[in-house]
Structure formats: structure tokens, C-alpha cells
């Protein structure tokens, strides 16, 4: 609500204010269904052609621990989940005390009077609004409901406060509980209406979002893991294998559930190594297959990924990154597996690494990754992370008829086949999948041993040189097909932010704020981590300072992981790091503060 701020209504008179956006933080415990409230709000925004972005933290324990869900809804472009909340909905004392600092001064704290004792010293800075949420919910739907339903009651309060579209929300509630007992749907609607009917307007103004611009086409609302899973299906992937690990498990659950509709299969394996091996086996069988994990699991897969590089086998490896190393912070975000993706493994094993920039990009990156893998016969990493995996965004529905692919293998007989043909200049050799009759009677072996052109083992120094060059050249050929990323903001000037993955939104918002303050700042977002696209050095030349903004440690030498890679690649001392590892997404103001500190000392 940057433009029109929320203010208390004078003297209880009902008043309606127009706002362009709002950040609502819901704080409770993990089993309270607060993600459901956030999900309803996000979906409603999508259906109302508004932009939306969410942010959540969940504890790594099963239930009972504190959890938050933040929704930012706006009529204009929403780039991040918002630095400060306009409204805090607090279910418990700890929710209230732990999150009051996330509320901007003058913001509204809406709390459950049954559980929260407001602090007098905070009354000055924040507008306090107590509602007996728990007891009113029980009153509305009966004692058996216990704590269940208070989330929906609170949704009713928020709906009234923001004058949200009632029929659309009712429809969403019906859809959500469809297939369940009719009494559950009725209870939910009863709780919702009770919350909606609670008389808030006497004490606080009602807010309406200003009309957003009409968006072309329908919007879909989903989180990054869903976009990734559906992207893989659209790409034509019909086989996957994995082992559960947070925050990747959602993707495997989705694929296990959805793939049979398309005649495909997802196998839950005994471990990470079996998963990558089985996916490689299916890829060998003729269609690009997928495996995935989070950092620790990817570590276990690296030997087999090295085989994939050597044998030239297509494979998609999704890494939904979390805080590391080791078990680390399973439900927090970090971008600390870049080195693992680019370099992790034994020997020289060049591979492809792509990083989607937002939820929508997860869908299209999946398709792009599959097409690179099958054209270049190489393992391709998709580096997602916990924040992009769990945040909900609305984006334009893809043209599914156009983007969906069929990857059925061609089993027509062929005269001859050399799986590792050295006569092809760009290093890209086609593959004959098993089942293909080869008329010469000479059949290929795919192997992890250094090999000759037919895949038979060799200890020849010359062949090792030639084959290493072949595996490297493929990536140089690929890099030439990438378009140079476009600069956001000032095309030349003082500062260029460079980012990758889920940080695109906050970085762009930082650019906007800096420019509004008169600073010459631009940003560049790199989706192709390895190989890098050509032409970045020309962009770097246009700025005095280059700050690589990432969520990982600055390391022994003072540079984050992408910064280190870029410095090695471009030998440009202007490249410096703005890095952090607190397990949370970037706040826009933190990026700008860090920039100003760095500029001040230099």
C-alpha cells in the first residue's frame, strides 16, 4: 500500500479507501491452515487479473511450530513478496510478538483476542484490532470444529476489510472442498460468512484495490514446484524417478499422480542413487527422463551424473535448493548449490545448468531444459529453490496446444551408427535408442569408460583428448544459441546488479527504487548459468560497479558462487558480491543498503 496508506477510519464512520496494493502477513502454527488462507487470496487475485506473490516459511517439524504466509496483491506489477506488511493477522501470542516487526509503522495488526494479549507499548505504532477469532468460529460452526475453520473465519475478516469479491471467494471455497463431505463445505462457508459479517467497519476503513489493467488471456495461479512439474509434462517427459526430500518432494508427488494420465510413470526409489540411475536408464530407453532432489540428495547422484556426461545421455536433474550444507535448513531458501551444479563431480564433466527466475519461468525452463538435453545428449540441471518452489504467482496461461511436445523415440532401422562420432564438428552426435535395428550389424555401447567412436573402451591419450574436446565443444555450440540477457533499468551507468534464480523480483524492485532516487542502476538476470550466454562482457563494460546479488555465503575470498564464476570467466575486478545466508528471501531495502555501503567504501 505504498501510495494510499491504510488509515484508521475517523469516528467509526464507514469509509472506503482505494489502494494499489497490499501486503498481508498471516502468522500462526503450521497446522492452522494459514497456507490455505494465503492460497485463497492468491487465487482470487489471479482471477481478478491482479498480480500476486506469496512468501511462506514452514517449520521442518510436522506440526505445531510457527509458520507464516505472506501475500502481496497489487493492481500493478508485483515483483517481490514485500519488505513490510500492511496487515498482520496473528493467531497466537508468539505470532504477534515475533512478527510485529515485519509490520510497517501505522500498519494494522488483526489478532485473535482469545489467544493474544496486546502490548500497550505497541499500541502507539500499530493499529490494533482484536477479534475473538477462535470463539467466534466455534460459535459459528459448533464445538466439534475445535480449531478447524478459524482460518476460513479469518479469511472472511480479510475479505471484508479489503472488500474482496464475495462470489468469487465462495466459489474458490467450494472448489477447494469439493469431493469432501457436503457438511465440510457448508462449515467452511458458514465460518467464512461469520468472519465476513463481523463488524470491522466500525473501527477500521474498508479498502478496495484500484482496478487493474485488463490482462490478455486467462491467468493461472500456482507455485514454482507445480509449474516445474507441469512444465516437464508439457515438455513430453514421461518417466521420472526420485526419493523424497524437502522441498523437492512436491514435484515428485505431482509427477507420480499426473504421469499415468499420459501413459507415463514415476518411480519412488530406494535411494537417490537408484533414482538417478533409473532415470538415466529410461532416458537411454528413448525419452528424456527426470530425477530431482535438493542439495544433499544431488550430492549422492553426482557419480551417475558424471556417467551421463561421459556416456552423453540426456537427463533432467531438478535441484530445489535449501539451506546447506548437509541437512542444513531444510525449509529455508539458499542459492548455495550453484557450484555443485556447475562443478560438482569427478573429472572434467561439463554440463548444462539453467535457473528459472520466477514461477512462470519454472514452466518454460522445464521445456527448454528437456529440449537442450535431448538435442545435445547431456544432463541438464534446473536450479530452483525453496522460495520459488513454495511461492504462488499468477501468470498468463500457456498456450498448451502449442507448447506440449511428444518425445516418442524413432525406432526406424538405420544403416549405421556411431554414438561418439568425432567427424561432426560441433560435437553433437545423434543417438540410436535400443530397439533400433542397425543394418550394418554393428551396435553401439554407451559407457562411462573413455571410449572410441563406437563406445568401446580405450586408453588412447589421443582419444581422451578428442572426446574431452567433443564434450566441451557441445556446450560451446549450445552457448552460441543463447540470446544475451536484456538489461532491466538503466542500460549504462553506475551500478549493474547481476542475479540468478528466484531473486529476480526483489532485484528489479531495488533497481526501480534506486532509479526513483535518481541513481543510474540496472540489473541483469542470468538464466543460463552454464554455459554462460555470449556477450555479457559488453554489458559489464557499461557500468562502474557490478554487484552479484545472491543468497549464499561470500566465501573465503569475499565472493558468492556466481560472482566467483563470473570473475573467473571475465577477469573483471569490477565484479563484486552482495551475498547473504539467513535462509530468507532478499528484502529490497537490504539490497540497496548493501549497495550503498559498498559504494561508500569505494
Amino acid at each position, binding site marked *: 500500500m505504498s501510495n494510499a496508506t491504510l488509515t484508521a477510519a475517523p469516528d467509526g464512520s464507514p469509509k472506503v479507501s482505494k489502494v494499489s496494493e497490499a501486503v498481508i502477513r498471516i502468522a500462526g502454527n503450521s497446522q492452522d491452515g494459514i497456507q490455505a488462507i494465503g492460497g485463497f487470496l492468491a487465487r482470487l487475485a489471479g482471477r481478478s487479473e491482479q498480480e500476486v506473490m506469496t512468501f511462506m516459511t514452514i517449520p521442518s517439524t510436522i506440526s505445531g511450530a510457527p509458520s507464516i504466509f505472506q501475500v502481496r496483491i497489487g493492481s500493478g506489477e508485483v515483483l517481490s513478496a514485500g519488505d513490510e506488511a500492511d496487515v498482520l493477522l496473528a493467531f497466537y501470542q508468539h505470532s504477534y510478538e515475533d512478527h510485529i516487526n515485519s509490520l510497517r509503522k501505522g500498519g494494522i495488526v488483526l489478532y485473535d483476542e482469545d489467544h493474544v494479549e496486546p502490548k500497550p507499548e505497541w499500541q502507539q505504532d500499530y493499529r490494533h484490532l482484536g477479534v475473538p477469532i477462535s470463539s467466534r468460529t466455534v460459535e459459528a460452526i459448533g464445538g466439534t470444529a475445535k480449531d478447524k475453520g478459524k482460518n476460513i473465519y479469518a479469511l472472511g475478516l480479510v475479505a471484508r476489510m479489503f472488500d474482496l469479491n464475495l462470489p468469487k471467494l465462495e466459489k474458490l471455497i467450494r472448489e477447494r472442498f469439493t469431493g469432501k463431505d457436503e457438511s465440510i463445505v457448508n462449515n467452511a462457508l458458514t465460518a467464512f460468512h461469520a468472519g465476513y459479517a463481523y463488524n470491522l467497519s466500525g473501527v477500521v476503513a474498508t479498502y478496495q484495490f484500484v482496478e487493474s489493467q485488463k490482462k490478455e488471456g486467462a491467468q*493461472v495461479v500456482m507455485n514454482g514446484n507445480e509449474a516445474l512439474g507441469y512444465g516437464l509434462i508439457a515438455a513430453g517427459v*514421461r518417466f521420472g524417478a526420485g526419493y523424497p526430500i524437502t522441498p523437492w518432494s512436491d514435484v515428485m508427488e505431482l509427477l507420480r499422480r499426473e504421469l499415468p494420465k499420459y501413459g507415463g510413470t514415476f518411480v519412488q526409489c530406494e535411494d537417490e542413487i537408484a533414482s538417478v540411475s533409473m532415470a538415466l536408464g529410461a532416458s537411454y530407453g528413448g525419452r528424456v527422463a527426470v530425477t530431482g532432489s535438493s542439495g544433499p540428495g544431488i550430492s549422492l547422484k553426482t557419480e551417475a551424473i558424471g556417467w551421463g556426461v561421459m556416456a552423453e545421455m540426456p537427463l533432467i536433474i531438478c535441484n530445489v535448493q535449501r539451506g546447506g550444507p548437509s541437512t542444513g535448513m531444510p525449509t529455508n531458501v539458499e542459492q548455495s548449490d550453484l557450484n555443485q551444479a556447475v562443478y560438482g563431480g569427478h573429472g572434467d564433466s561439463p554440463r548444462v545448468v539453467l535457473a528459472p527466475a520466477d514461477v512462470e519461468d519454472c514452466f518454460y525452463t522445464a521445456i527448454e531444459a528437456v529440449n537442450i538435453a535431448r538435442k545435445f545428449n547431456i544432463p541438464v540441471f534446473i536450479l530452483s529453490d525453496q522460495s520459488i518452489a513454495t511461492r504462488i504467482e499468477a501468470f498468463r496461461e500457456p498456450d498448451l496446444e502449442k507448447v506440449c511436445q511428444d518425445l516418442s523415440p524413432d525406432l526406424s532401422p538405420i544403416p549405421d551408427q556411431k554414438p561418439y562420432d568425432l567427424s561432426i564438428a560441433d560435437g553433437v552426435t545423434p543417438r540410436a535408442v535400443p530397439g533400433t535395428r542397425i543394418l550394418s550389424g554393428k551396435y553401439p555401447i554407451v559407457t562411462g569408460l573413455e571410449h572410441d567412436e563406437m563406445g568401446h573402451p580405450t586408453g588412447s591419450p589421443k582419444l581422451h583428448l578428442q572426446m574431452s574436446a567433443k564434450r566441451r565443444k557441445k556446450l560451446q555450440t549450445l552457448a552460441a544459441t543463447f540470446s544475451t540477457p536484456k538489461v532491466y533499468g538503466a542500460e549504462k551507468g553506475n551500478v549493474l546488479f547481476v542475479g540468478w534464480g528466484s531473486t529476480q523480483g526483489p532485484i528489479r524492485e531495488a533497481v526501480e527504487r534506486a532509479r526513483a532516487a535518481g541513481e543510474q542502476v540496472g540489473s541483469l538476470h542470468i538464466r543460463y548459468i552454464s554455459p554462460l550466454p555470449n556477450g555479457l562482457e559488453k554489458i559489464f563494460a557499461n557500468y562502474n560497479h557490478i554487484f552479484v546479488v545472491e543468497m549464499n555465503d561470500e566465501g573465503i575470498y569475499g565472493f558468492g558462487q556466481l560472482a566467483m564464476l563470473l570473475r573467473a570467466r571475465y577477469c573483471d575486478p569490477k565484479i563484486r558480491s552482495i551475498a547473504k545466508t539467513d535462509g530468507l528471501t532478499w528484502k529490497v531495502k537490504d539490497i540497496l543498503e548493501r549497495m550503498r555501503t559498498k559504494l561508500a567504501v569505494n
Partner: protein
Amino acid sequence: MSLPATEIPARTGNITALPAAPAADERKGLTKKELAADHPTWCPGCGDFSVLALYFKLIEKRKLWHEKITTVAGIGCSSRFPYFVQAHGVHFIHGRALPFASGISLSRPDLHVFVFGGDGDAFSIGGNHLNHTARKNIKMTYVIMDNWVYGLTKKQTSPTSPQGFKSKTDTWGAVDYPINPMKQLVSAGATFIARTTHTNPNHVLQMMEAAMDHDGFSVIECLSECVEFYEGAFDASNPRKGGVFNLVPPEHDVTDEMAAYKLADASFPGYFGVFYKVNRPTKNALEAKINGTVQEKFKGLKDWQILKKNFDRMK
């Protein structure tokens, strides 16, 4: 060929929907010459030679075509196998041949998948994969060429080395209790378990044929002597060396788990033949059944239309 007929659903995206195989032409069964690829790198006298020769014989006898078989192996002397066979083949990493082969088997029901490997692959580094491939009953044939020693790395203790065996890692003699392959396979839930030895070629072929015909995960432990690092290990099972080759008694009930376990308890040389064989639905069949049921609801829809249904719910 006795492979089970595979139902091929109509939708193009199906992992099982492959172009129909060319009509049975006048191809003659492959000869040994057409099947031999690289000359084996095994030491002269190695038991693995006879397993390879009998694999060729199996392909010849059962009129399998180059393109219809896939030979997969992990790492070890025996795992060099695919290089010596003129057919689509895979030399994968140590211990992981079974999950790789599972990926082929589950996505390509038109192929017969054979896996060859040694005791290190099967019972040590890949031990857990053996358990899970067995319990899932994924259709393939696995021949474990057991020589009781690590040969490729030159004489270290193997998980099947008997206690007291002197290796470079146990110069005073192996101390750890060895794995009993038959017992392990029975308790893991394998649906076809047989034991043979390279010195009895007819028996090896017989076991291979029976294993290939089994609809499920079929495993053969084939004693295969390492003449370099464990010479004479299996003499007691070889009548030509004064040993005895005891067939599984005819009265043995192959569907009786306890009887199979008991049979496996006999001290070396023990028994040779089929220890256990039951029909339990394969994972291949169970997954195909799930897909059939699910796909019934989406009959006539193109892939993008199925996906559209999900997207419509996310608006």
C-alpha cells in the same frame, strides 16, 4: 519368443506406445559370429567365458534379435560383458546396473533386459538395489557371476568370500561372515531364484532359458571361477575335479520359501537348479494397470487437453 504380449495403448505420449515392430521377416537366428563384438579381456581360463558363450547360445536358440535385447552391466571383470556382445549395451557405474536396467524395463516393455555382474555389484555396493528390484519384481534377467573375490581390482575380499580366504585386504584370512546369495534373494522377495556353475554349460543354458521365460525379476547366481585370484574355489562342485554337482532334489517345492531357504543352508557345494519360483505381478504390470485405469477417464483427449484440465482448475 516367449516374451509376454504387451498391450500398446493408443496415445502417442505413452511410454509404451512405440512404432509396431516390422512384420516377422525372414531373418535367420543370429549366429555366434554375428553376436560377438570385442574379444573378451578376461584372463585365459576365466569362468566368465562360458557365461558369455551360453548367452550367445541363448540368443541363437531363442531367435532373439540384436535390437530386441539390451545388455546392461555395472563395474567389475564380469561387468565388461556388454562390450563383448553385438547388441545395444550399457556399461554403467559400480553397483547401479539394476536401477538403470529398471528404467529401461519400465519404459520399454518391447525389450528384453539382461543384466550381468559380479558379487561386488550384487551384494556389496549395489546390495540394496538387489533387495528393492526383487521386491518390486521388475521384469528382467540378472546373472550374478559369483567368483568370491574382487578380480578387477586384483584380489580384495568380496562379500561372498568365505571366512579365512586370504586376500590383499585380509592377509590373515577374511574375518567377516559371507553373504549367502540364495538366502538373501529369498528374503528380498525375488520371484525366480536359481543357482548354477560355469563348469556345467548345459545347466547354465537351462537356467538362462527358464529365467528369461519368467515374467518377473529372475536371478541366477552362476559360480564363475577366477583362475587368477581364487583358483580352485569351486572345485568341490566340479565332478571333473573330484567334486559333486548336486541338482536341486526333484521333490523340492519351488514355491515354498522356507524350503528354498533350507536348501540354501546346505554347505558348499550345495545344490544347483531353481530354488524358488512364484508368479507375483510385476511392477511393470501393476504400473500398466494403474495407467490403464487412470487413462480410461481421459479417453480421446490429446496430451495438451489433459494438461488443460489441470490448468483450468488453477484459474
